C-alpha cells in the first residue's frame, strides 16, 4: 500500500484513566487511504474510530505505530489535514465569510486571495447569500457547511470528518452527504469520514474500514464493489442498485456481531 496518501501503520492507543488504570482504545490498526478517495471509518460506538481519526489529525499521539501523510510521520495538527467535527465549531463572533477566511488568515494569505477563495467555497456549499451573516443566524446544516467551506478553503490535502452530520435531521443529512460527493468530485480532496451510519458509509465511501470494539481493531476492509469504482451522487438511485442491500446486510451483520460481543 505504498501508493496511499495517508497511512495508518500498526497504530495503537492506550489512554491513562488515572490511578494506574488504562484503557486500550485502539490496537494494531493498519490501513491506507488513496489520494482523491473517500474512506469511511465504520463501527459501533466505542470502537475507537474517532480516536483513529484524531490520531490522523495529529490531535492525539499514537501509543504505538505511526500515521503517515505523503510518507512523512504526523507529529501534530497541520494545515494539510483539515478536520470537521460533529459539534458546531463556528467562531460565533465572526461573520460566515470571516469564518471561512480564518485558516487562510492564520497562514498569512493575502486579503484578496482570501476573499476570492472564501467566495468560491461558500458558493460550492451553497452559502453565498449568507456570507455576511453570523453563524448563530444559521441552521445546524448550514453551520456544518460553513465548517466544511472553512476547512476546504484552507487547501488541505486530506479532509477528516468526525461524524459531521450526526447532529442533523435525516433530510439535511442526505443533502449534506450528496454535497460531500459533489465536493469530493469538484475539489479532488481525499476524505476520511468517521460514521456509525451504514447508509452514510455505503453512499460516501470508496472504501470502508470496519473497526471492532474494545479495543478497536481492524475487522474488515470493504470495497463497495457494486459501485464499480464510481460515485453515485444520488441517494435514491444508490439504494435501488444491485448489490446495495447485500452490502448493507453484511455491514449490519458485522455491527450486530460487535454489539453482541459487548453485552
Amino acid at each position: 500500500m505504498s501508493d496511499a496518501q495517508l497511512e495508518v501503520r500498526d497504530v495503537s492507543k492506550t489512554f491513562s484513566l488515572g490511578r494506574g488504570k488504562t484503557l486500550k482504545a485502539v490496537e494494531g490498526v493498519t490501513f491506507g487511504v488513496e489520494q482523491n478517495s473517500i474512506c469511511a471509518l465504520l463501527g459501533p460506538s466505542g470502537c475507537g474510530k474517532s480516536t483513529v481519526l484524531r490520531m490522523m489529525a495529529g490531535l492525539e499521539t499514537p501509543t504505538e505505530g505511526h500515521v503517515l501523510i505523503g510518507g512523512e510521520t504526523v507529529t501534530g495538527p497541520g494545515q494539510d489535514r483539515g478536520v470537521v467535527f460533529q459539534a458546531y465549531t463556528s467562531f460565533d463572533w465572526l461573520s460566515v465569510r470571516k469564518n471561512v477566511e480564518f485558516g487562510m488568515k492564520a497562514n498569512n494569505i493575502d486579503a484578496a486571495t482570501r476573499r476570492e477563495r472564501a467566495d468560491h467555497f461558500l458558493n460550492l456549499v451553497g452559502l453565498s447569500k449568507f456570507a455576511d451573516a453570523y453563524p448563530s443566524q444559521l441552521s445546524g446544516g448550514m453551520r456544518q457547511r460553513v465548517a466544511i467551506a472553512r476547512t476546504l478553503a484552507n487547501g488541505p490535502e486530506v479532509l477528516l470528518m468526525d461524524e459531521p452530520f450526526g447532529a442533523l435531521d435525516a433530510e439535511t443529512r442526505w443533502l449534506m452527504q450528496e454535497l460531500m460527493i459533489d465536493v469530493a468530485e469538484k475539489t479532488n480532496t481525499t476524505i476520511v469520514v468517521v460514521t456509525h451510519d451504514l447508509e452514510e458509509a455505503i453512499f460516501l465511501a470508496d472504501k470502508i474500514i470496519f473497526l471492532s470494539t474494545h479495543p478497536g481493531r481492524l475487522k474488515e476492509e470493504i470495497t463497495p464493489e457494486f459501485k464499480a469504482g464510481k460515485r453515485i451522487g444520488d441517494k435514491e438511485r444508490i439504494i435501488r442498485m444491485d448489490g446495495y442491500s447485500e452490502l448493507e446486510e453484511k455491514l449490519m451483520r458485522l455491527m450486530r456481531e460487535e454489539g453482541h460481543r459487548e453485552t
Partner: protein
Amino acid sequence: MTQTKPKRDFFAVRSPVGRVQGTISAIGIWAVFFGVWILATSLGWVNELLVPSPQKVLAATYDLFVNRGFSSDVLVSVWRVFISFAMACSVAIPLGVAMGTFASIEAIFAPFVSAWRYLPAPSFIPILLMWFGTGEAPKLALLFIGVIFFLITLVMDHTKNVRKELIETALTLGASRYIVVVKVVFPAALPDIVTAMRQMLAMAWTYLVIAEIVASTTGIGAMMMRARRFLKTDEILSGIIVIGVLGLLTDVLFRVLHRRLFPYLEVKH
C-alpha cells in the same frame, strides 16, 4: 372577528408574564414601598429624626447637589471605582485567560489566588492605612484587593469553558498557539468575561463605601459619616440612594456595552 385572549392564571407555573402585567408589578412593588414609608412618617408611626420622610430625603438630595457641592464627592467616588477597577481588570483579565489556557500557569497561580479569595479585603484596611497613609492609595488598594482575586478566578473559569473543539479546529487550520489564544480563546470567552466584570463592579462599589466610611474625608461614604455626626438621617439616606442609582447606571451601561460588543449573541434564526 376579534380573538379573545385567554386569561392568564396568576399562579401559572413558569409561564412568562405579559408586558402590561410586568410593568404593573414592577411599579406596584415600589408604590407599596414608598406608600408605607410616607404613611409611616406622616402618621407618626416612627421617630422622624431616625426615619425622615421620602419628601425630606428628596429635598436633602437636592440641597446636597445644588448648595453643598455633593457632586464633587460623587465624582471622587466614581473616579476611585473606575481607576481601581481598571487596574484590577488589566491584571486579572490577561492572567485569568493565561491560567484558563495553560495548565502550567494555573498550577503556579491558582493555589495563591484561591487562598487570597478567602481573606476578607476590609481586614487589610488597618495595614493599608499604615502603608499608604490617608491619601487615595489605601482606598484604591482596598478596592483592587477586594476585586482582583475573584475576577481572576471568574476569568479563568470562563476561559476554561471555551469548547475544546474550537481550539482544535483552529489548530487543524494551521493556527499558531498565539493565534489560538488571541483570536479564538479570548474572543470566545469575552462575552462571559464582560459579564464577570459587570458582577465584580458591583463588588467594587461595596468596598468603595467601606473604604470611604472607615477612612476618608471625601466621597459619598465620607459624606454619609459626616451626616451621621450631625444626626442628618435624610442625608445618609440620600447617600444610599445615590449609590444605588450609580450602581444601577453602571449595570445598565454594562448591559448596553454587552449588547453593542456582541451583536451575534442577540441574533437567532
